[in-house]
Each structure stands twice: as structure tokens, then as C-alpha cells.
């Protein structure tokens, strides 16, 4: 797995590695990356919204401080990196994107499937439980795509409200995090700040009951987010909602003894 330049006179690595040596070498490199093993299930695609956005972040670093790395994949149409993201990135040691788990919750047979589907379209859940202890959240964002909709009037507006779920039904309790007005003709990523909420979820994982999105038309009537062009789960893969969190290590990282 290694190639060395022609000038090298030493011969310690210029031979074919035996199987167990190759495994040892892989373990060493995994250790460098701070991973106990490679991911167990690999069912992901690099063309989902989150990986594409992360690749944009990677390319931002690569063309900046680490200029000897060239961009790898074309990332047109991905969740564009904003100047604010670049600032967060400068200050971060690690960035993580989280997939929306609410859409993956299996439907229960005796419940009304349409109702559940509608419900899941407005609910978003992210598992922040696997964050290493030494990492501190410096910024977090929820990103959702707003598609152009032809059916609406040009100057029609909608109000999008994002809530943190404090208590689940039947005594549902919600905390308003952000609210904004969008035009029907608008197209692109809506970014909501989730820094405070993420910090709370990291410290108290039991309080992570997800996010709830409410869409109202210009008359204050609640409506399906899809009518305003919001991609909430059933849309194209490269426009799926996701969460991104920026971390800073609060102590020097030591590799564990093996």
C-alpha cells in the first residue's frame, strides 16, 4: 500500500507486505485517524446533500491552508458554503454532518401511515450521541432546501418557523428557535442557527427530541411544507435536509494505547 521515491536506499519497506503486516499497517493508519475500525455498514452515497456540502468544506480548506490538495469531485448544486461557514471552518478542528433520522423511523403497522408520513415531513431528528468528549460545539446549523414552485403567485410569501421539541405528544411542548419569511419564487438552502440547541443536546442527550418545522401561508394558515417547495424527506437526495456541527478540541488529543 505504499510507494516510495527512487532515491530511497533503505529496503525496509520495498518488499511486498505479508497479509498480517498489511493488516497491522491498516490498523496503524486507522489509529492515526482516531478510528477503532472502518465503518461497519457502508450503504451511503457520496451524492447526498450532506456529503456534497462536506466536500465543499473540504475543498475550501484544500484551496486555502492545505493548498497541495486538489478538489476531487465536482460539487455543483451542493449546499453552497457561505462566508460564515468559512469562518466557522477556520476555527474548527472537526466538522460533522448528521443525517435526518426522523424519516428513517419505521412505520408501525396499526397506525395511520398517511398521518405518520405527514408528521415525519415536519420532524427532524439527529443523533449527536457519538461526539468525542474532548470536542466542543462552536457552531451548528440546520439546512433545508427550498425549491422553486411554479404553481404559486410570484409575490406569494410563506412563514417558516423552526421549533425545538421540548416534550413529545400528547403534551407536546415546543420552543421557537427561528422564524423567517420566504418568497415562493425563492430557491436555495435555508440555514438555521442551532448552536445553543446542539450544545444542550450534547450535554443532555435525553433532551434531544428533535426539531419541528411549521409552514404558514400569508394568511397565517398552516400548510404542508412541500407546497412552499421545502424538501423535507421525499425529494431528491442532493436536496435532503441535514445538520452540520463545527467542533473545536478543548484539549490536546492523545492516541489511545493499543
Amino acid at each position: 500500500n505504499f510507494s516510495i521515491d527512487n532515491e530511497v536506499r533503505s529496503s525496509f519497506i520495498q518488499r511486498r507486505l505479508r497479509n498480517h503486516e498489511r493488516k497491522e499497517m491498516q490498523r496503524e493508519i486507522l489509529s492515526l485517524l482516531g478510528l477503532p475500525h472502518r465503518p461497519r455498514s457502508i450503504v451511503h452515497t457520496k451524492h447526498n446533500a450532506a456529503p456534497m456540502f462536506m466536500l465543499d468544506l473540504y475543498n475550501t480548506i484544500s484551496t486555502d491552508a492545505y493548498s497541495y490538495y486538489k478538489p476531487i469531485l465536482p460539487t455543483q448544486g451542493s449546499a453552497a458554503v457561505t462566508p460564515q461557514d468559512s469562518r466557522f471552518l477556520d476555527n474548527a478542528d472537526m466538522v460533522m454532518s448528521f443525517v435526518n433520522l426522523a424519516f428513517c423511523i419505521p412505520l408501525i403497522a396499526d397506525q395511520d401511515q398517511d398521518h405518520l408520513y405527514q408528521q415525519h415531513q415536519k420532524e427532524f431528528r439527529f443523533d449527536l450521541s457519538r461526539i468525542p468528549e474532548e470536542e466542543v460545539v462552536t457552531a451548528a446549523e440546520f439546512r433545508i432546501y427550498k425549491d422553486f414552485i411554479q404553481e404559486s403567485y410570484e409575490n406569494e410569501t410563506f412563514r417558516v418557523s423552526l421549533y425545538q421539541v421540548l416534550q413529545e405528544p400528547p403534551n407536546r411542548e415546543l420552543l421557537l428557535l427561528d422564524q423567517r419569511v420566504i418568497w415562493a419564487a425563492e430557491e436555495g438552502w435555508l440555514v438555521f442557527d442551532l448552536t445553543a440547541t446542539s450544545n444542550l443536546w450534547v450535554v443532555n442527550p435525553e433532551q434531544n427530541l428533535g426539531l419541528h418545522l411549521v409552514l404558514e401561508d400569508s394568511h397565517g394558515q398552516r400548510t404542508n411544507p412541500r407546497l412552499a417547495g421545502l424538501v423535507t424527506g421525499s425529494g431528491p437526495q442532493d436536496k435532503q435536509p441535514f445538520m452540520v456541527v463545527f467542533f473545536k478540541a478543548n484539549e490536546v488529543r492523545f492516541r489511545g494505547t493499543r
Partner: protein
Amino acid sequence: SAHGNKGRQSNRSKPQRTVQDALKAAEAETGAVKDVITTESKGCKKHELYVSFRDLGWQDWIIAPEGYAAYYCEGECAFPLNSYMNATNHAIVQTLVHFINPETVPKPCCAPTQLHGISVLYFDDSSNVILKKYRNMVVRACGCH
């Protein structure tokens, strides 16, 4: 100085001369100058070692980069060390002391003097994507320590 306070005080007026004398004697005894000529090409240098994530079969979960040039340092740190621009001041002293007492004092080591970071983008077990900056992963320069 290996001679304690008394010796240091007595040599304070011409300390350089004492070291030079010791080196001249060492050269004469060991033929060190001849040795420099033969070891020059084996001097402490940076060599490329490419770690290929592609060849490791990890491209399904490491999104970027495909691999990275890690580099490593190899070569001798031999007298006269100050001809190597990357030798630290202390490495030069270490060489001198090694000359005086080769049995017990080791030579300086050829090691990285400047390191660089890389960033790696990969999937975790839950299909989340992680972008991590790793410090001190790539050797930028080697020198004698």
C-alpha cells in the same frame, strides 16, 4: 563542559579554542573528514512515502483525499553537522559531545523539523460525514536533532 565549574572558569577566556582543539584531535584520531565525504550523500533528507487510501481499499468510506504524501526522514547526522543548514544548534553540540565520548553519547537523530497538517473527509458508522483536521501528519522538512 564536562569538567565542572572549576574547569569552566579556567577556560572562560578562550572556550572556542578548547572545542576546536578537541575536534582537531578527534579528526586526526578517527579520520572524520574522510568520513564526511563518504557520508555526504547519505545525509539527513526528506523522502516521500505515499499513503494511498485507494490502495487500502478504503475509498468507499474515505471520501477525500485519495491518499497523501506523508514523507519521512532518513540519513546520517554526522560531523561536521553545521554544514547541514537544518541542524539545530543543540544537535551540533550533541555531535561534538558524541565525538568526545562516542561510547556513551549518541549522535543526533535525523527527524522532522517542520510538520504540516492534512484534512480527511470520511463516513462514520451512522452515515454521518466527518471532516477532521489532523495536525503534524506530513513532514515538511527534516533536520538533525
